[in-house]
Every structure is written in C-alpha cells, then in structure tokens.
C-alpha cells in the first residue's frame, strides 16, 4: 500500500461534475482529491476482500445473537421498534448495500472501525468517479471496484419481488450529496429495468383513511429506498404509522440494519469473537484495560462527539451521545505524508465488491475528509 502523488487532470472539476460529483469541494476545501492516489498489490486487495466477507459473516452471527438475547436496549433501540426488527430479520426483505470502514496499512490485517450498514454514502465517487479517473490516468491498471455491476444485478434480482414503483427518497442536504447518492442508486435500479420515482422524505404522505404511505400524487408507496437513518425514522412523527405498516411496505434498507449501523455492534462482535484478527477490542461499559482508545457515540455521524485518548486527548464536538458510547481500542491507522487514510469497503448483497478511501489530516475521519482514488 503506497500513497503516490500525481498531477490532477486538467479540468477535473468539470469532468467529475459530468459524472455526477457536484460536491467535489466542501466548505473546508477539496473533497474529491486526485492530487494523489493509493496503490495496492493484488495480495493486499485479496486480503481486504477476504476480511470484508469475513466481517460480514460474523456480523450476521452477531445480529442473530442480539435478537436471540433481546439486547436492543444496549443499542438504544426503542422497544416499539423491536418487533419490526425481529420480523424483518427473519423475513429477510431486500437489503442492498453497506460499507465497512477499515484501518489498514498493507502490513497487518484490516481492522473494523465501524459498519455503515444503513445509510452509507461516498458511493458515487467509489463506484463511478474513481473508475473514470482510473481509465483517464492509469488505463493499464485495475481497481477494486465492481460496485456498479453488483448494484444493477441486485436490482434485477429484486425486480419480481418488489411491489409497484420503487421510490428513492432522501432529505434535502446542502451539499446535495444525499440527493446525488440516491439519484445514482435510482439510476442503477432504472438500468436494471425497475420503474422508479424520486421523492423527498418530507413529501412522504400518510393517508389516514387507507392507512398507508403515499407519494405526492396520493399513490400508495409499496417499495421505497430511503437514504435516511432508521434511528431518526423511529423517532419522527410518522414512526407509529411506520411501525404499524412496516410489513406492508418494502423499506430498503430494512429496519434490522439498526443492529449493524450502531457502534454497539463493535462491542458485541468483540464479545463474541475476542481476538478476531479483523476486530479491535471494544466495550460498552468503559475503556476497561485500554490505555489508547476512542470513545464513540453509539449513533453519530461525520466524526462528531469522538474522544480519542492516546499520547494526548482529542475531542470533537456534536450533538450525539444520548444513546451511550462505545470504547474501542485505537486503530493502527497508517500515516502517509501526514495523511490518515480510512478504507471504505463496499458490500452489495452482502458480498465484498469495491473500495473507496477517505483521507484526513488527523486521526478522526469527519466531514472535511477527502476522497482519494486507488488502483492496483
């Protein structure tokens, strides 16, 4: 694993915009950063792929354990949602994608930092934009990336299973990242032959007479992909209606993803698989014997409310932590020219299929981190 500096393509902003990446800059500066790339060996890619599939395997075991032992309270999951989670876990409604965040340096086994199982983003850049970057700059090289084909294949498989039109819903975000991610996913479904429509979360209607969710034309919603976290959905005004009708609607991702998108999963995994080569020690009740660790909210986004304890202590601000925290051993994130890369390893239909890299100036990945392409 190497970090190599390269001259960005002339007019790269326009190029990536044409590919849908209109959020190539943030308020903090560049987001899509093609002034460097990461080069891997085939062995390293194989190792990452195998680790991703292995973590998926043990995450499935952990999910079953959480349900069997009724550990929802430790995840801060409201009791009202438990029945729907158990039902969905057993019924196995459609689940499309997820992203493992891994610490990896090429010399040691990849270590799981967290599982973004419900609303993973940085998808378009991983699936499409870095692929075209590779074709433009390293045409003879390869890339760990079959995300697009896997998405299309999964939608094709679901075509006979999904009822009615498939809606793609997101909230309006300033950067338009969520809207673009949802639009990209919608395009993959359209390419697979599904009838699709776009919808904002706030425009989802509740028809109290028919007791069903409806779109802006008052047509019933039977199948919907939402880029909106379950931990928010189950606390919003429509939550009782959502849980009442959950079995009548195909919600993608399904509600059981609350078990994986919660950092309490890290502690349950370590409890079930202590000393697993792809896990870091993690606990729900404090740092125990850890001296270098990260205290993470069970539910948080964009690196908020993190406390990193090592030679010195770093804290980030935010509004999360109400559900409690997880203490995880500090990961051995490598430093390349002062940059800290975290690997986002993608799964579609539960199978490893690609990677995107977020690079930060410090040890905490947040909303100022940059996306850097890769090749092997």
């Amino acid at each position, binding site marked *: 694993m190497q970090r190599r500096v390269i001259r960005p393509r002339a007019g790269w902003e326009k190029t990536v915009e044409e590919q849908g990446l209109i959020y190539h800059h943030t308020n903090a500066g560049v987001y899509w950063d093609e002034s460097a790339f990461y080069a891997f060996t085939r062995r390293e890619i194989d190792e990452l792929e195998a680790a991703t599939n292995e973590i998926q395997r043990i995450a499935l075991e952990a999910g079953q354990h959480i349900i069997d032992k009724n550990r929802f309270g430790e995840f801060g999951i409201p009791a009202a949602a438990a029945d729907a989670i158990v039902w969905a876990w057993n019924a196995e409604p459609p689940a499309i994608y997820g992203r493992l965040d891994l610490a990896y340096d090429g010399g040691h086994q990849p270590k799981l930092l967290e599982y973004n199982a419900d609303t993973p983003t940085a998808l378009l850049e991983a699936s499409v934009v870095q692929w075209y970057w590779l074709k433009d700059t390293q045409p003879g090289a390869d890339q760990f*990336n079959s995300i697009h084909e896997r998405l299309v294949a999964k939608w094709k498989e679901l075509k006979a299973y999904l009822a009615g039109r498939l809606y793609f819903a997101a909230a309006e975000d300033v950067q338009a990242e969520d809207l673009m991610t949802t639009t990209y996913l919608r*395009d993959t479904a359209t390419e697979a032959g599904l009838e699709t429509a776009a919808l904002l979360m706030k425009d989802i209607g509740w028809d109290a007479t028919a007791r069903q969710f409806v779109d802006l*034309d008052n047509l019933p919603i039977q199948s919907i992909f939402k880029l909106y976290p379950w931990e928010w959905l189950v606390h919003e005004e429509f939550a009782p209606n959502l849980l009442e009708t959950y079995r009548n609607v195909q919600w993608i991702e399904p509600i059981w993803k609350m078990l994986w998108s919660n950092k309490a999963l890290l502690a349950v995994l370590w409890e079930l698989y202590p000393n697993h080569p792809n896990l870091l020690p993690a606990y729900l009740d404090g740092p125990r014997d850890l001296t270098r660790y990260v205290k993470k909210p069970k539910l948080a986004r964009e690196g908020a409310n993190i406390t990193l304890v090592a030679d010195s202590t770093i804290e980030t601000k935010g509004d999360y932590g109400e559900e409690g925290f997880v203490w995880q051993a500090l990961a051995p994130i490598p430093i390349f020219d002062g940059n800290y890369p975290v690997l986002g390893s993608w799964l579609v239909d539960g199978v490893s299929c690609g990677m995107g890299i977020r690079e930060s100036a410090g040890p905490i990945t947040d909303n100022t981190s940059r996306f850097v392409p890769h090749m092997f």
Partner: protein
Amino acid sequence: MKKSRAVPLSLVSTLALAALASGCGSFGRREGWQTCVDRDTNIAVDQSHCDQDWDTPPSGHYIPHYSWYYYPRGYYWNAPGIGMQVPAGGAYSRTPSHSAPMARSGVSAVRGGFGSRASGHSSGS
C-alpha cells in the same frame, strides 16, 4: 472479479444534469387517480361516502349521491384533496376501479412526518 466496467456515459451525464438542475425533480409518468365525489357539486369527499352508497340497495331510478370519479393517466397532476372540486373530463363509476396502480384518492394525506431531523445536513454515513 476485481476489475470493473464502463459505466454507460449516458447514465452519468443524465445524472449530473439532473443533479445540477436541483436533484430530485423527476417523478416519472403520471398515473390516473380516482376519488369519491359528491355528484351534485363535484366536490371530492371522503371515500366512506362512496362505500356507504355502495351498501345501499339500488332501486330502479336510484342515482347515487356519491360516485367514484376516475381520471386517466397523464391528464391531471394531483388528485384533489377533500373539499376540492374535481376538474371536468373524468368518468363516474359506482364501483372503484381495481386496475393498478390506482390511488384511492380524495383523502387528504398528511405530509412532513419524516425528514425533520436532517436539517440540511447529510443523512449519510
């Protein structure tokens, strides 16, 4: 397989154009809708009125006070809410259509029950 493929250029170009034109705007083709109406006024009413009329045994000259009112695909944007007058040009029926996908419209859907927590920030992770 590690190696990826060519993503169709038309796909990403369309995606970018759609995004730059404000993201979510395309709602696909319009579907027909049906709603229960007061036949005297052509005002949309709750569907329970049509259900009750359906339960009334018809006599020889019975004209139901309430009927289902059907609009074909592509003719009109939204089904009117309760209390709104339906536009002319639709067809009355004593029974609702069962052809899918049809909205049993005429009821007012409540909106805004989702999305309040995003506040303009990304919901992604």
